[in-house]
């Protein structure tokens, strides 16, 4: 029977191998067919809910008007910078456009994974000049190996980090300092982001607050120097922070805030806008503050990865999204602030019912120092002045990562170790017992034969 079964197996195995080979062949064939039209496809790799999806059908129409060529957009979403980076760096995926956060963009630039952006648009007006100089200047920080970052990235959305807090549970004045995270009386009532960039920056600013206040170091240097002394101090601060926290949230912090059990958490201002609105619907009052010691500014930007195959359409797309009306639509959908600073946007975000005015001349240009806008969405100049942009760790990445896992600590406690050892001992004993039984019964059997 076994021989016949084996024969059947062989036949089945051959059949399945054929099926697989056929599948692979079909796939390769279909890619050949697609390759012909590759220069009529634009592959975009973006975060979810970060762009108005109607644009994906409107852009080809605009592109046809401007250049007379056809294009079809293929849209792929990613959920984490790291996945996007891995796919492009390791998988050489041929995305034409990707949207990394600024630190990851720097890493990509440093590792030669980007192509320059071509601003020759012929007769089409160049909307990229609408970018706020505030953001464009920040790009200079990321110049690497003689490459001007401003030629490789187009900022998309930007924001600041701060504290989202429940006005009924904590005082507004407390929230003006990062110290509230380290304060024992708030134990178990706050969340920090589970991101080694944000945690490092926060701990560094808090650890060096005296030096920053005295003017000896700047928020920027504290966040980005990554010297050994800095890393050690950050580790120390994070270790004191950990027992105080309710946890390290990854995505659902703002949602937990709307439920009212957490009193405050580290948040980006775009998330804060969303959370304040949503919480108001359930009767929870939230507000957002950027501590006085300093914080960080971030932005997501569009880049053209190295393996892109349709750079022409990519460049035109980047131009397209810098158009003020398009930027406005994207702002609505994503809830964040566009890096585009034009009068149309200014008009759209001004809310004349607001009482206080804020200085936004850093963003919209001189003469805009008393605007009525949502201060959470568009921070006042005083806020932005004390925020620095986070750079990538580059060479220090491994070290910081090790520090990060050390700081987050482990949970092993005596009882657990004891239990594990007990289980291992029991298992070993059981196996030895079995072997002994086997030997005994073998002896018995061989004895019987005689």
């Amino acid at each position, binding site marked *: 029977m076994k021989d016949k079964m084996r024969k059947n197996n062989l036949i089945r195995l051959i059949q399945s191998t054929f099926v697989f080979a056929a599948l692979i062949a079909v796939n390769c064939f279909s890619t050949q067919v697609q390759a012909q039209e590759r220069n009529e496809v634009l592959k975009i790799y973006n975060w979810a809910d970060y762009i108005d999806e109607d644009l994906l059908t409107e852009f080809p129409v605009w592109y046809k008007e401007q250049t007379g060529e056809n294009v079809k957009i293929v849209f792929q979403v990613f959920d984490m910078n790291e996945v996007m980076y891995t796919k492009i760096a390791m998988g050489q995926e041929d995305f034409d456009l990707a949207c990394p956060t600024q630190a990851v963009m720097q890493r990509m630039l440093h590792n030669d994974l980007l192509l320059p952006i071509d601003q020759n648009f012929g007769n089409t007006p160049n909307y990229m000049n609408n970018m706020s100089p505030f953001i464009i200047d920040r790009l200079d920080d990321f110049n690497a190996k003689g490459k001007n970052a401003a030629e490789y990235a187009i900022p998309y959305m930007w924001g600041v980090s701060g504290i989202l807090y429940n006005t009924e549970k904590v005082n507004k004045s407390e929230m003006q300092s990062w110290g509230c995270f380290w304060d024992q009386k708030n134990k178990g009532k706050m969340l920090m982001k589970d991101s080694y960039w944000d945690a490092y920056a926060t701990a560094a600013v808090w650890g060096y607050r005296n030096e920053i206040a005295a003017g000896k170091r700047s928020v920027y240097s504290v966040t980005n120097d990554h010297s050994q002394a800095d890393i050690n101090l950050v580790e120390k601060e994070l270790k004191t922070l950990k027992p105080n926290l309710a946890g390290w949230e990854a995505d659902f912090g703002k949602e937990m805030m709307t439920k009212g059990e957490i009193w405050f958490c580290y948040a980006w201002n775009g998330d804060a806008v969303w959370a304040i609105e949503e919480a108001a619907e359930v009767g929870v009052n939230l507000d957002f503050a950027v501590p006085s010691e300093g914080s960080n500014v971030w932005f997501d930007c569009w880049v053209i990865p190295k393996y892109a195959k349709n750079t022409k359409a990519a460049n035109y797309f980047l131009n397209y999204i810098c158009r003020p009306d398009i930027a406005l639509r994207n702002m609505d959908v994503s809830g964040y602030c566009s890096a585009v600073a034009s009068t149309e946007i200014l008009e759209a975000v001004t809310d004349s019912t607001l009482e206080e005015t804020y200085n936004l001349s850093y963003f919209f240009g001189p003469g805009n120092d008393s605007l009525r806008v949502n201060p959470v969405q568009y921070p006042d100049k005083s806020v932005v002045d004390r925020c620095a942009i986070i750079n990538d760790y580059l060479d220090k990445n491994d070290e910081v990562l090790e520090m990060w*896992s050390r700081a987050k600590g482990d949970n092993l406690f005596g009882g657990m170790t004891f239990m594990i050892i007990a289980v291992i001992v029991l298992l070993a004993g059981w196996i030895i017992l079995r072997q002994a039984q086997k030997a005994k019964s073998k002896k018995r059997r061989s004895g019987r034969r005689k």
Partner: protein
Amino acid sequence: MANFQKFWNQPEAMHTFIFSIGVAIITTVICLVLGYPAAYILSRMEAKTAKIMVLLFILPMWVNFLIRTLATVALFDFLRIPLGQGSLYFGMVYNFLPFMVYPIYNSLQKTDKSLIEAAQDLGATPRQVFLKTILPLSVPGIASGIMMVFMPVISTFAIAELLTINNIKLFGTTLQENIYNGMWNYGAALSLIMLILIGLTSLLNAEGNAKAAEEGGLL
């Protein structure tokens, strides 16, 4: 080799690994304790009802994992139980219980009824019937169940992340952090260590169990 040395030198990673093994052991034991009786009861039912019931155990897994876990968080909020070790074990057992019940049910169901009857005819008490006949025959199912629960628990990170707000760090989280942040080699080394250690244990276990099935049942 440098990566392996690194693991050795980092007490934190080692501790996380050992802790995860501990969590996995506890989860497996809970699943076994809860799942075996369930599988046994199901195998005693009529075939038709039993089939539906088993499918009912699997059905929750068809709702997407993230939504399910968030709903568990909401459940705990609703019951005013704080998230922590308790919710971690609940979440783990919740996700892996069907994997334990299924194989045990399969092997129990296939047990030749005549063997049980024979044991009873030979004068065995119900307890003896169970311990000496049914239990050993179901050992392959138990082995499968343990395998499908133990290892995946060590490498799951999402449950720990969501149900303990990242307070409890499992080995899967370490692995994910390293791989996502570019330390591929270290992550690969970590997973290899895990594979070797657990593979050894499961090999030994499987041998022991196979012997038990042959000797305990059919002699």
